[in-house]
């Protein structure tokens, strides 16, 4: 199991801010994701309606998930596949290992799978003498560097060209030491050559699933590289890792979700390879796996039904929320300390590993609302983060100073007249003190703010007073 460093979010974030390589990567890649999504959305006039449709499909699937999972299972069995129901990460690891051992597997190729990261399947296989090989280019270098992905669709988001070169030189010692890496293409070609042999030699292929389809018993993967397809086509055994909320009713439902997935994620109209796998090799087929296993994983999700967080189960893992998040953009994915970073991680991680460990994450938000405004299934991420803050407070998990500060503010907030008087006094007082420079370089009790930037001095009245004045003048309702 990956040791979550989420409890140390503050320290992680500090380190991230002073990590030059990370800051270079964030500055380069953040804006391009935003621009590409915007262009894709501009090219699809019906996009907002498609988001409503996507939300409604997932809501319908979740409201009837018990029915659809049973229907899905029946179809998988009818097409010669097997379904392994797993309540916990440990159940899932054991199920995968048992299938690999029964197949006599020595090497296993892997397509990118976030649930695979969640259950830390690679460590488990390695401990039992089976070599897992990540084949998605981003996951491959993450594996070489013994890291976690820093982004759910771009695992190597935090790395630069020099990191790729260093990792490849260290790992591929059989290649000439004097070879050069002048272009990204050189890296890509070396990975292609290195991994081709692994694809052909693997005994088992493990992929994730973007969707499971009840109508047909199919699992769906979406990739641009084709690595997932090589992984699930060439070895004798294909294992699909999927969490329970991936199940949707029909091909039409999956198709409607696919229309918003790639556009929200990479800004493509459609990913290069969208593949529907249904059962094992059929009579007469010249290729394809002889065994098809679905490891169906709960790991905390069923407990989210009927709670404030059920809406989070709509998530289709596009990463638009983190691509548009100012906090993610400043500290990157590793600071979040576990598998899922960004706003979706700030909501999901406390559900999966506990708010006592991950309580900092929902606090790492400016509540700007950008994440909700781009979410293809309209998850109210800020509202859900607020729910976690409330629970953290109720369970007395915040430090005493935070609680004291909140109580102090709460005293005034519950007494509006006093609140207005106090804020007015503060605004006028600070305005007078700061009149000369127009800003404060230092401020008692606000060192965290002023150590990074100046605090502007108030330039007049409070918001309430100005609003009341505007109302009297008839400028606002």
């Amino acid at each position, binding site marked *: 199991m990956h040791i979550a460093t989420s409890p140390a979010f503050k320290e992680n974030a500090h380190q991230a801010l002073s990590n030059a390589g990370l800051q270079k990567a964030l500055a380069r890649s953040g804006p391009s994701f935003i621009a590409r999504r915007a262009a894709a959305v501009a090219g699809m006039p019906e996009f907002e309606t*498609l988001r409503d449709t996507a939300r409604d499909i997932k809501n319908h699937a979740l409201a009837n*998930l018990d029915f659809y999972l049973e229907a899905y299972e029946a179809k998988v069995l009818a097409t010669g596949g097997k379904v392994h129901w797993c309540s916990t990460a440990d*159940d899932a690891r054991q199920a995968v290992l048992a299938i690999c051992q029964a197949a006599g597997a020595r090497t296993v190729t892997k397509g990118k799978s976030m649930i695979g990261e969640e259950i830390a399947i690679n460590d488990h296989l390695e401990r039992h003498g089976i070599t897992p090989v990540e084949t998605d280019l981003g996951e491959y270098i993450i594996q070489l560097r013994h890291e976690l992905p820093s982004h759910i669709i*771009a695992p190597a988001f935090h790395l630069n060209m020099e990191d790729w070169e260093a990792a490849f030189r260290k790992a591929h010692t059989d290649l000439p030491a004097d070879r050069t890496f002048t272009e990204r293409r050189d890296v890509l070609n070396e990975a292609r050559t290195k991994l081709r042999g692994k694809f052909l030699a693997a005994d088992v292929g493990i992929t994730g699933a973007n969707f499971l389809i009840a109508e047909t018993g199919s699992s769906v993967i979406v990739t641009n590289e084709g690595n997932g397809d090589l992984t699930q086509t060439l070895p004798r055994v294909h294992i699909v890792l999927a969490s329970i909320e991936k199940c949707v009713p029909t091909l039409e439902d999956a198709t409607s979700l696919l229309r918003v997935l790639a556009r929200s994620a990479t800004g493509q109209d459609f990913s290069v390879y969208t593949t529907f796998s249904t059962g094992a090799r059929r009579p007469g087929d010249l290729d394809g796996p002889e065994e098809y296993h679905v490891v169906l994983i709960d790991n905390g999700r069923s407990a989210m*039904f009927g709670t404030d967080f059920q809406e989070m189960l709509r998530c289709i893992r596009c990463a638009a929320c983190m691509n548009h998040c100012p906090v993610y953009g400043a500290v990157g994915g590793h600071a979040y300390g576990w598998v899922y970073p960004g706003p979706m991680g700030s909501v999901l991680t406390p559900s999966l590993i506990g708010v006592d460990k991950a309580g900092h994450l929902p606090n790492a938000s400016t509540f700007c609302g950008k994440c909700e405004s781009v979410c293809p299934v309209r998850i109210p991420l800020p509202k859900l983060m607020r729910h976690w803050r409330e629970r953290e407070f109720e369970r007395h998990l915040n430090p005493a100073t935070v609680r004291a500060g909140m109580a102090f503010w709460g005293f005034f907030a519950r007494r509006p007249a006093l609140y207005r008087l106090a804020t007015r006094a503060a605004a006028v007082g600070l305005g007078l003190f700061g009149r000369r420079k127009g800003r404060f370089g230092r401020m008692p009790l606000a060192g965290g703010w002023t150590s990074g930037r100046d605090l502007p001095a108030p330039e007049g009245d409070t918001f309430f007073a100005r609003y009341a004045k505007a109302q009297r003048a008839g400028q606002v309702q």
Partner: protein
Amino acid sequence: MSRQTILTAIRRGLKRGPLPADQMAMLRGRLTQHPRHLIPARSHLPHPEQVDLFTRNVEKEFGSVAHVPDMNAVPGAVTDYLAAQNLPGSVIMAPHPELQAIPWSVRPLLEIREGRAQGTDAVSVQHGFAGIAETGTLMLPSAPERPVTLNLLAETEIVVLRTSAIVGAYEEAWDRLRTELGAMPRNVMLITGPSRSADIEQTLELGAHGPRRLHIVLVEG
């Protein structure tokens, strides 16, 4: 055991037991009828314009398209493409009756083998089941006569597709698949352009693990 635990936990959260029979019947009806949702207007076009939209979208996604008048012109189109790309005249071809009926012998220098692809094959020729104009996407369902490895292992994949197989939206292709093939094939690939990756510095590079080139020979009729 996990199975019952998971289903029970979901039902407990939803504050109900197993669905009543009438609701189950309704959901089964939804699965059988598989209703469509909103389909974007971009592909609601007369058929010739759908063919044009398909071609434009394939090219936008770094694929290439050659139009030919009939199946007799396919060997010439394939040979010309291979020569222009400086590729060897040896291909592994899907054992599909429509491809087998093509008069390949008019180009005696082109070596044709039939079957699935191996790691050593440089060029594959695949049979296209449908083309989806909406995004320039090929639908390639697996079958003994349409091996999946042809879509993956060769550096160059050539797909022979009839213009009559081009539809507007994905939903129309699913309906064709249900009508013509009945059950869901073991594997259905929707392919939009050649393999690529943006994992290195979030910058697009073509030719990751799948084909570096995707060429479509579009046959009238």
